């Protein structure tokens, strides 16, 4: 027993770089040798899926990109899955960006899904309105008069010349909003300045770290479901029956979590052993 206690205490003094190395190995191994662990959709993901599935054909759906390369691994897989679901159900997709680097992400996602996979027509099936600085002021602008905020799209085409912009003048003209958010401005601003005042339903996909902040809106019904980080993306991919990057990362995620929990448990045992010995002497 004494030997085991000494070993745990010794582990507590391990150079932190060994821990980094162990995490790197346990994350990398399942990427090379997938385990195929099962993915079960949570209630929050299912609610988001149902909200989009129940939209009638040709609904006008606003998708807002509020993330950049730094959070791409978490949010991009879910936007790809959401776009696939929307285009498969023949919805009209309007994309705007509250983050400047969100425009890059939106272009990449639309190229992959709308152009390459579904062969859709720009301006008739989907449009990229692009980025406007101003944070919540942009959201307010979209709510009151989108044509004042966006006179041209991301390609420089006048809004009046884009066929699918006919009859779209303000936020209330949309049937649904999906906010792919990594922080401020993002989901919270859409709830406060757009969805709540107008009653247009919305759903969201956020980074894991943001989930606790957004969850009260989901619980109260102000937001229809939430895709929580990479696992949320994997669950959505499972629901639409098209595995993607989210699914491929889930084995690594699960194994890494087990190892981290193990480290936390060992760290706590070490803390209690040290405290017990300090009391003894």
């Amino acid at each position: 027993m004494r030997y085991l206690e000494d070993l745990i205490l010794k582990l507590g003094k391990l150079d932190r770089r060994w821990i980094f190395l162990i995490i790197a190995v346990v994350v990398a191994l399942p990427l090379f040798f997938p385990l195929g662990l099962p993915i079960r959709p949570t209630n929050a993901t299912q609610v988001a899926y149902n909200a989009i599935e129940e939209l009638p054909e040709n609904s006008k759906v606003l998708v807002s990109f509020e993330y950049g390369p730094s959070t791409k691994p978490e949010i991009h897989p879910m936007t790809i899955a959401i776009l696939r679901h929307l285009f498969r159900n023949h919805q009209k997709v309007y994309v705007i960006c509250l983050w400047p680097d969100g425009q890059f992400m939106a272009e990449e996602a639309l190229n992959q899904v709308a152009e390459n996979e579904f062969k859709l027509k720009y301006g008739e099936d989907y449009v990229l309105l692009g980025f406007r600085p101003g944070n919540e002021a942009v959201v307010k602008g979209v709510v009151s008069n989108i044509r004042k905020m966006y006179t041209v799209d991301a390609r420089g085409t006048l809004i009046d010349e884009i066929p699918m912009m006919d009859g779209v003048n303000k936020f209330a003209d949309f049937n649904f909003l999906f906010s792919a958010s990594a922080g401020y401005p993002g989901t919270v601003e859409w709830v406060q300045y757009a969805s709540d005042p107008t009653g247009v339903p919305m759903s969201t996909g956020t980074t894991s770290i943001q989930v606790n902040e957004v969850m009260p809106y989901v619980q109260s019904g102000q937001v229809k479901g939430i895709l929580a980080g990479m696992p949320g993306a994997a669950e959505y991919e499972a629901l639409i029956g098209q595995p993607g990057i989210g699914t491929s990362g889930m084995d690594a995620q699960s194994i890494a979590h087990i190892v981290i929990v193990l480290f936390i448990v060992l760290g706590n045992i070490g803390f209690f052993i040290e405290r017990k010995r300090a009391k003894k002497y």
Partner: protein
Amino acid sequence: MSGTEIFGGWVAAFLTLAIFSYLYKDNPFYKIAEHIFVGVSAGYWTSMFFWTQIQPNLFGRLWPKLEASEMSGGLMSVWYGIYNVLGAVLPAVFPAGGIDKGHGMHLIYIIPFLLGIMMLLSISSKLSWFARWGIAYTVGMAAGLRAYGFLNSNVIGQIKGSAVQFVGGLPFFNLLGDSIFNSLIIVVGTISGLIYFYFSKEHTGILGKVGRLGIYFLMISFGASFGFAVMGRISLLIGRFIDLIDYSKAGYHHATIWIMIVMVALLGYSAFKEKQAPPPTTE
């Protein structure tokens, strides 16, 4: 695969591994990546802000494209005369004949234009006081804008959302979905959490006990936040690893592997030299 894509892969692999190298210790590779990131981000943001807002929405409203007849005569010819001078210096920003971004003329936009210039004057020690006007406008506007949003969504919406629904056919107990039991937990958690932050009376007796219950709810919330934070960081690591694995393939000429070998060799050599160097003497 095109040469540009392969080069992009090498750059991405180098920058990713350079940032990861900080986990070993601070080193020149990390410094290079850090400085490139700061520089590129600042440049990209400035460019995006200018070309998506200032040029089309500010200058486009001050000097919109008009018919030649509309630009002539009196003040208009002076106004577009200024534009033509600016156009001679910066033709890409001020193209001949006015900016065609779908706007009409709105001279009221001179006010935000001047406020913006005032904010830029903060770089001058003598004129920096001008910046306060721009900042005052921004603070006032943001405070007014946020007050309504918070009141409507975070106060009224949340009170509505946390109310217990005894009617409406909710089951008494359901672990994953909506239920009366779960609603009661939310109500108890909300009230006890609020009482913990009520400092006008000493936390003794019932108030102390309810406040203590609030701490437990807060602890559970912090635990969930920590768990989500770990999950998020691991997701980001997975994302980088997926890209690094891609860049290690033959299509990219094994970029990840070569860069990693060179980096590890150089960092190892540097550590070896550091060990051999005599300790610094103090006199």
